[in-house]
Structure formats: C-alpha cells, structure tokens
C-alpha cells in the first residue's frame, strides 16, 4: 500500500518539522528563562541595596522579599570575622536555612559563595525542591553579597530561593502548543503523503477532530471529574450517588420511565392501528394531531396541565373543586410525559404496521380464521418488534426528560433534575452532577443497545417492493367505533391543552381572575433579546448540522478509510446520552484553557449541532443508500473533485434528507432545554428557560405568551419545509436508476 517514495517524503517532512519545532520551542523557553533570570537578578540586586545598616532590622527586611518576588524566601548570612566565613543570621523561612545547612558543602554552593565573596551575585547552577508556604516547589537559588558602604567589602550574603512556578507554567503552555502543532503537522503530512485523495482525508480528519473535541473529550472530562474530590482520585462522588438518598431518585426515574413507556405504547398502538389498519376516515387529521406534541416546546404541556389541574387549576378547582388531589408527582408527570411522548410510539408502530403486507391477513382469513384470531395470531405478533422498539424509545426519552419533571415532579425525585440541582444548587458540584447523569446513562444506554441490536434483528417485516394497495378490514364496525371514540377523546384532550395555553395568554390572572387582557403580550418586548438570540442560534445551527451530517453520510457510505466504524459510533453517541449529561460535560470541559467557550453563543451552536447530528446522519445514510453510486462516480470521472461531487451531485440528490435534518435541528434547537440550561449566559439566553422562570414565578400568563410564540415559529418552519420538499417528488422518484 505505502510506496517507498511516500514514506521517505513523509519521514523527511516530519524530521524537518520536528527539528524546527523543537528548535523554536527550545529558543522560546531558553530566552524566556534568560529573561526571567535577568529580571530576578535585577530585582535581587536592587533589593540587596536596600539592606538596613542595623542588624536588628534584618529579619523584618527579609520578610519583604516576598513582596518583591512573589513566593520567594531568603536567608541572611552575616560575615563572621572570627572564622572568616559566613554564618546564618536570620531567615524568612526555616526551610531555606535547612537547605543551606544541608547543601553548604556541595560544589555548587561553595562556588556561588566564593563569587559572593568577590562581590558578585550568582545563581546556583542547579535547582532545589523546597517546601515554601506549605507547598513543595522547585526553586532557583541566588546568592547575593551585601556590600558595605566602602564598596569593596561584603558585610553579609543573602540567599534567595525563587520558586519557578510562574515561568514553568508559561513553559508548559509553550510545550503544549509545540506538541499540538507537531501532532497537527504530522496528521496533515500523513494525509497529504499517503492519501490518494487528500480532500477526503482532510474531511475525515476534520470529522475526527470535531467529534474528538466535542463528543469524546467532554465525556472523558466528565468521567474524570466524577472520580476526583479536591483534586485527588476518589470514589466519594460515586459513593454519594449510590447512597440511599440518590438511589431513591434513580428509582423515581425508573418508575416514571416504565409507566410513561407503557402508557405511551398502548395509546401509540391504538392510534397507529386505527390509522394504518382500518378504514377509518380522518387519517391525515389524526396523524397530524398525533404528531403535534413531538414538536411542541418543553414546558408548554406541563404549563397547560398546571393551568387546568394545578392547585389553582381551571378544572381541578373552579369546575370540580377536587380539593387536595395534586397534579404534582408521579401521576401528573406520567400524564404529561405520555402526552408528549406517545407520538414517538405512534410513529414507530405505524411504520411497522404500514409495512405488513395485508395479503398475509387475507391468507389467514381465507383459512377460516376469525378477525380476532387473525389479529391475535398474525397482525399483532408481526408488530411486536415495533412495539418493543417503541417502548424502549419512550423509556429512554422519559428518563432523559428534564423539562417536565422540573415543573411537575413535586415530591417525586428523578435523576435528571437532581443532577441539575446538584450543579446549580448550593453544592455547585459539577462532578456530582456528572455522576448522577452517568447513573442515568446506564438504563438509557442499555435500552438503546437492546433496541438497536436485539429488537431490530427480530423484525419480521421485509420490504417486498410490491406495495399492497388493498387493505383488509380486521375490525367490526362497533369495535372500530369504540377505537375511534377513544382516539378522539385523547386527541381532543391534546387539542384542549394547546387551546389552554393560548387562552392563558389572554387571561389576567389564571385561577383567580379570568378577565380578558392583552397585558401578557408585553412578554414579547420584554423577552425580545432572548427571542432573537434563540432564533439566531437555531438558524445558524440548522445548516451547519445539515451540511456536516450529509458530508459525514457521504464519507461513511461511499469512502473507505481506517476507523470508519469508530467514527460512526462516536457520531451516534450523543443520541443515547441524556441532555443533562452533555450540558454538564460541556461546562466541565470548556470552562478552562485552552478552550474557554462557556458563555459564548458558539458553545450553544456546537451543542445543537453535535446533539442533532445523529438523526441527520441516519437520514443521510438512508438517502445515500438509495442512490446508485455510479452517479457520483460519473461526476468524479468527468473531472469533479470530492467537494464538487458533494456540492453538485450529492447535496441536490439528498435534498429531502438534507432539508428534513435541517428542520429537525432547527426545531430541536428552538425547543431545547436540558443541555442548554447549563450553557446559557446573560448574552445568549434561551426562550424555553425564560418560560421556565416565568412558570416558576407563577407568572403563567407571560409563560403562555412565550409558549404560543414558540409554537407559532416551529409550525411556521414546518409548513415552509413541507412546501420545499413537495417539489422534490420528481427527483425522488428518478433517483434510483438501477
């Protein structure tokens, strides 16, 4: 594979660069060392000149040394005329006296003492480790004579130990940069000399760098911090997280997850069955309504549940006067989560139901099975993998959910909010928050893996390529009527929740005073800045995520390169990780040198892009698999390089996937909360957090207005997307020429 010539090129370039790199590093550090040494010399000789005449003033004078050179310690030796040598008189730190006693007979010390005798300041040619102010530091030791008034006699000698901490941290920084530039150069040189197609090489390299910095690095940092207490390795944080007080929260999360997943799967199946397998009429309306909650902003459903069933709720208090039943807690949370997450189950299960060829049901009926028997023994078993998938997906989502528990958890403690409290509360403990989020990761990742590798393999559904146009009616009219009624009750309830939000926006003081008002709409000018920044950041991230996702999909589907599987796994990782963990990991990783991003808009955009990349990537991969590779090969053959092929061929052909992943990213960015809540700053605020703070302060009118605005924006973008994708039908049909 590797040609000799390339190898020689690469080694030659590497040797030249590394030589230059080391030389520059060396020159920089040594000139800096020289400068520091010179400065210390100057400081010390100036300091020596201020020596007091009277010996009793010397101890206090010695203490001043640390104000001139930070952290330095000094020892004063006076000239003893009897012995003809210097003896310790006073010191600012006992340890420096100790050092002198230990080292006075060493070659280096003797030499320095001798030059002091000849009135010259000298730095001892080696360094010593000293304990100064309770810390072990490496120090450079200076020996300076104190010259008598006559100018040619030393009355004493000052030994000063100067810690090298300042200069060494600078040295380390230069070292880091030298190392990083060497690594960067080597990688680039590697790609240039060994890759036949450097552009692909650089794209792969860029992806690895992006994913390495923004996926792997924060997670590793978070994991590292979870094992650190006060700068030392310990299991304290994990011990705390696994203590009964937090196990309760894990238990709470699991209970919530199981009940939400079960309820959502049942409702999802019911509606999916009604839409896909019966002659039910209003299919489009129902499926549109049933997918609505997926794109609705966080807090909006919780908010409207509070408005209806809260302590001052319209239904619970005004209409029914239920008294002391509380919506806060497991029951209320399950209700809200089910409404916001059953669409996931609905979409998954209807996808499976749609692909079941109704001829198998016909065959069963033809063999004299009753409708119920057919459903029980044919249709339902074929749907089981889809049902399991749906359950797992909802379970994962419920555990990772952060917005609803924040408003509605009441006495129920769940991990995602506990982690948030840990970080933002009095403890201010990032590591602890990370530990709790990692705890959350265990059930979600195992559910994700089970779903991906076990359930998906059990799937019986095969695409035959022969679309079945006929539909076999499996339900009798009364059954269908009951199903329809139940579905409409559920959907009606959802519709009512949305209407409540809109109503809330026009009511003076919900629960107390229901007079009509427009006063709440001042929330828009009040939150204008956060509306603008929310929109702006979402608008920036959508195309970035879309393009990266499509380019990555092209590389993964069409190109061969080492580490492809690994890259794909890393890119998919954020999909399985709760937003809370990502948010905390980002705060941990990007609040220090060399990448201080916390507080900028960039970190929010990066977070959106990284989190929504997996879905876009999957879309892109699916789309590309349907496109004949010879189309791209033709373009390349006609002279197009990789970026041109991407721009002129791949992007137009995967346009539907590209648009939908952009829309998806945009909507998710507009409705983000779990990771974003850790990353927002005064300058870059998010609308959802604004809704949260209004709701927490019981200013439900203002919160309702912002919810309405957010829903309007999201729906607007969806309508636009549908319009854009519609005229793509022609392209989509002719793509597969094979």
């Amino acid at each position, binding site marked *: 594979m590797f040609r000799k010539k390339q190898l020689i090129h690469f080694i030659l370039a590497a040797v030249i660069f590394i030589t230059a790199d080391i030389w520059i590093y060396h020159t920089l550090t040594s000139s800096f060392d020289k400068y520091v040494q010179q400065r210390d010399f100057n400081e010390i000789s100036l300091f020596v000149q201020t020596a007091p005449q009277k010996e009793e003033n010397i101890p206090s004078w010695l203490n001043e040394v640390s104000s001139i050179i930070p952290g330095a310690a000094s020892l004063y030796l006076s000239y003893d005329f009897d012995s003809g040598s210097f003896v310790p008189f006073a010191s600012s730190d006992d340890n420096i006296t100790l050092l002198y006693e230990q080292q006075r007979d060493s070659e280096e010390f003797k030499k320095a003492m001798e030059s002091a005798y000849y009135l010259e300041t000298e730095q001892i040619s080696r360094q010593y480790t000293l304990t100064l102010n309770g810390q072990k530091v490496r120090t450079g030791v200076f020996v300076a004579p104190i010259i008598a008034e006559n100018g040619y006699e030393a009355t004493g000698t000052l030994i000063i130990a100067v810690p090298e901490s300042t200069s060494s941290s600078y040295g380390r920084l230069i070292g880091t940069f030298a190392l990083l530039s060497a690594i960067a150069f080597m990688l680039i040189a590697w790609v240039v000399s060994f890759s036949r*197609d450097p552009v692909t090489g650089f794209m792969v390299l860029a992806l690895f760098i992006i994913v390495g910095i923004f996926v792997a690095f924060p997670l590793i940092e978070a994991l590292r911090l979870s094992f650190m207490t006060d700068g030392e390795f310990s299991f304290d944080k994990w011990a705390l997280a696994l203590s009964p007080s937090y196990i309760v929260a894990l238990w709470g999360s699991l209970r919530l997850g199981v009940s939400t997943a079960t309820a959502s799967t049942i409702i999802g199946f019911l509606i999916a069955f009604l839409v896909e397998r019966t002659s039910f009429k209003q299919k489009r309306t129902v499926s549109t309504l049933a997918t609505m909650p997926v794109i609705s902003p966080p807090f909006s459903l919780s908010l409207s549940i509070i408005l209806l069933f809260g302590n001052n709720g319209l239904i619970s208090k005004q209409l029914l006067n239920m008294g002391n039943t509380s919506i806060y807690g497991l029951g209320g949370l399950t209700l809200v989560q089910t409404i916001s997450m059953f669409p996931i189950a609905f979409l998954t299960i209807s996808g499976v139901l749609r692909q079941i060829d109704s001829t198998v049901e016909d065959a069963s009926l033809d063999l004299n099975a009753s409708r119920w028997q057919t459903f029980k023994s044919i249709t339902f078993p074929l749907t089981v993998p889809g049902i399991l998938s749906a359950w797992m997906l909802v379970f994962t989502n419920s555990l990772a959910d952060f917005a609803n528990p924040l408003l509605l958890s009441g006495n129920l403690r769940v991990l995602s909010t506990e982690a948030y409290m840990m970080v933002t509360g009095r403890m201010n403990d990032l590591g602890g928050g990370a530990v709790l989020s990692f705890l959350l990761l265990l059930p979600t990742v195992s559910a994700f893996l089970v779903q991906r590798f076990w359930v998906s393999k059990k799937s019986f559904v095969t695409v035959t390529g022969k679309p079945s146009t006929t539909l076999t009616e499996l339900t009798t009219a009364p059954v269908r009527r009951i199903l329809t009624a139940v579905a409409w009750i559920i959907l009606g309830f959802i519709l009512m929740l949305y209407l409540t939000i809109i109503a809330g926006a026009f009511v003076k003081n919900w629960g107390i005073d229901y007079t009509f008002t427009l006063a709440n709409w001042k929330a828009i000018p009040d939150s204008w800045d956060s509306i603008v920044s929310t929109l702006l950041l979402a608008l920036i991230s959508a195309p970035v995520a879309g393009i990266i996702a499509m380019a990555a999909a092209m590389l993964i589907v069409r190109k061969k390169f080492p580490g492809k599987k690994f890259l794909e796994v890393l890119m998919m990782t954020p999909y399985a990780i709760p937003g809370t963990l990502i948010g905390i990991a980002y705060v941990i990783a990007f609040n220090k040198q060399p990448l201080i991003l916390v507080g900028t808009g960039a970190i929010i955009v990066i977070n959106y892009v990284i989190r929504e990349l997996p879905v876009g990537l999957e879309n892109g991969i699916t789309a590309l698999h349907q496109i004949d590779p010879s*189309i791209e090969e033709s373009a390349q053959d*006609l002279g197009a*390089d990789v970026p041109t092929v991407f721009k002129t061929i791949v992007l137009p052909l995967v346009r539907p996937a590209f648009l939908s992943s952009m829309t998806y990213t945009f909507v998710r960015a507009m409705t983000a909360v779990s990771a974003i809540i850790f990353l927002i700053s005064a300058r870059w605020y998010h609308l959802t957090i604004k809704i949260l703070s209004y709701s927490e302060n019981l200013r439900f009118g203002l919160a309702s207005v912002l919810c309405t605005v957010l829903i309007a924006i999201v729906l607007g973008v969806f309508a636009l997307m549908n319009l854009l994708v519609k005229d793509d039908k022609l392209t989509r049909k002719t793509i597969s*020429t094979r």
Partner: protein
Amino acid sequence: MDKKSVSVTLENVTKRFKDVKGKSDVIAVKDARFIVEGGDLVTLLGPSGCGKTTTLRMVAGFELPTEGKIFIGDSDVTFLPPNKRDTATMFQSYGLFPHMSVFDNVAYGLKLRKVDSDEIKKRVQESLDLVGLSTYGDRAPGKLSGGQQQRVALARSLIVTPSVLLLDEPLSNLDALLREQMRVEIRRIQKSLSITAIYVTHDRVEAMSLSDRVIVMKDGEIRQMGAPDEIYEKPNSRFVAGFVGKAAFFPVTLKEKRDDKWICLFNKHELVVSRPPVEMKEGDKGVLMARPESLRLEEKGKGYIEGTVRMNVYLGNSLESFIQTPFGEVLVQIDDPHSKKVFAEGEAVSISFSVDRVRLLHPDEN
C-alpha cells in the same frame, strides 16, 4: 477532437480485497498485464466475478491496485484519482444525474473545465447530434427510454474528449434489438474518433463483433488474449473454447509426435492433428475441440463417431442437429440446410470432420 490516440498499459496488476469478515484476502485480479494500443477497442470478456469490472475500475481510478502499475500513454497513473485521469467511463446503469436535464448532464464535464457558455452550447449540441438526440436537450433523463439514456451517457463521456473510453457492460440493460443497434453505433463512433477503448462484457457476441482484440478472463486471471478469430478458432484451453462459442469435446489419447503434429487415438481411429497450445507428451489424455459448424453428418459407419439424431432445430439459415453419441450429446450445425441431406429424428448417423478443423487441447476443464 483531433487528439492523438494513446495506449493503456497494465503491468503486473493485482487487486486483493478483504472478504466480508475482513479476515482473509480475496484475489479479484491476479497479475494482469496487457497493452491496449492507441485507437484500439479491447474487450474484457469473462463470466461474472472474473475480475473484468475490477480491472476496468482500476484503469478508471475507482479502485487502487494492490500491486503493479497502470500507464495511460507514457505516464504512470496508478495513484491518480479518477478526476485527474483522462478517462471517461460509461456505467452499466449509466449514472446519469437525475436532477439535471439532458443538456446539463452532457455539459457537466465542460462546466468543470471552465469552458465558456457559448462554446459549451455549441459542443453539447454537436455531441447530441452525434448520438442522434439533438432535440432532447431539456428533457429529464428519467423521461427517456433506456437506449436514449444510454446515448446521453455516451455523449456525456465523449464531450470531454477523453484519451481512453471505458465501457462497463453498457448494453446489458437494453433489449436485444436495441443492443445490436447500439453496438454498431458505439463501434462507429469509437472508430471515427479513433479513441482508445476498453469494453467489459460477458456477452461473447458483443465481444466478437466489437473488438480489435479480446481478453478472456477467469477467476481474476487472464486466460487468453488475441483477435476475435484467433480466440474463436485457436482457443488455448477448454474453458476459453467453451466460453467464446459452442464446442464439442472428444477424448483422445496422444500416441506419437511427428514433426509439428500429433498422432492421436480416437474411437479406434488414428488422427493427425496440430500440436496443442500446451506441452503434452506421449500417452497423455487430451481432448479434440470441434465447433458445430465444422462437424458433418454422414451415413451410418462413414464418420468417426456413431450416434442417433435426437432432435433437429430449424433456424432458417441453418439447422441444429442434436446427436446422441457415446461421448454425450453433440451439436452439429448444418448451414444452408436445403442444399444438404438432413437426417430425420431417430435416424442412426455418423459424425465426421476434417482434421485441420479440430484442435487438440488439454483435458482440464478449467
């Protein structure tokens, strides 16, 4: 389009793939070496999976050889990416850009070369004229028939005046009649532009009728190279003989070498035939290969092999007679059947041939 025709040279080219599990190597092409002279059309012929398409893709630059070198003219292009090579490929599935009109498809290569738009318009029109699609410029490729799509692909490849045209089974998606037309068309255009071309196919008729030279491949190895008549008349192995045409094989024993010929024992007859393409010695087993048109039917007992007529298939210009013999069923082709004696089904006959129309081969079936 007055470019000098260049040659294509493969030097000891080997391509290994990792198998599906990524453990062992699969050899797709083994030590291929050949030269395609400038202006020639050379066919790579072989059953599917023989490495012919891989060879073509290496010349185009889509695959990198594991070993060996590829030259176009005098320059080593082994490591050059496809977009830097002066080749144009026509794919089996055409690879037309579905989101562009026919005009834009053909103009694509010129646009990349930054040719100005008036010039592009002129040359695209010329090119579409050449393939007989002058009025189809603003159609979408999806709206054209298979043959038209195929001609768009041809126009798109030719407009960039490549030094080498590579064709990967371009006719396999067309129906029989259209295939014949396009075959003639491609050969006409290739000759008129005197462009060097490599053509991959598994269809022996296509290979015979199109090429200046044919390269027969099997299991990644080149088995024989030569002009179409050479491959057909003088195959060097049983495999090539069987792959490029219908053939009957009769087992013989080599008796004695005389000058340039061998005396073979066949069915109690002694036949003197030309020496085989491989080294063989006295006492070896061999086979005699005979084409159906070289065999004759005689009255019972007059030929070399006795048998009975099992079935006659009348084809108009010829008649195919299937004869049951002790060596299995043998096909005898009788040209211009009306002027010859035809034996009825069930009749006992004898098969004969002239010894200079048969070929002694090694009996190995590979």
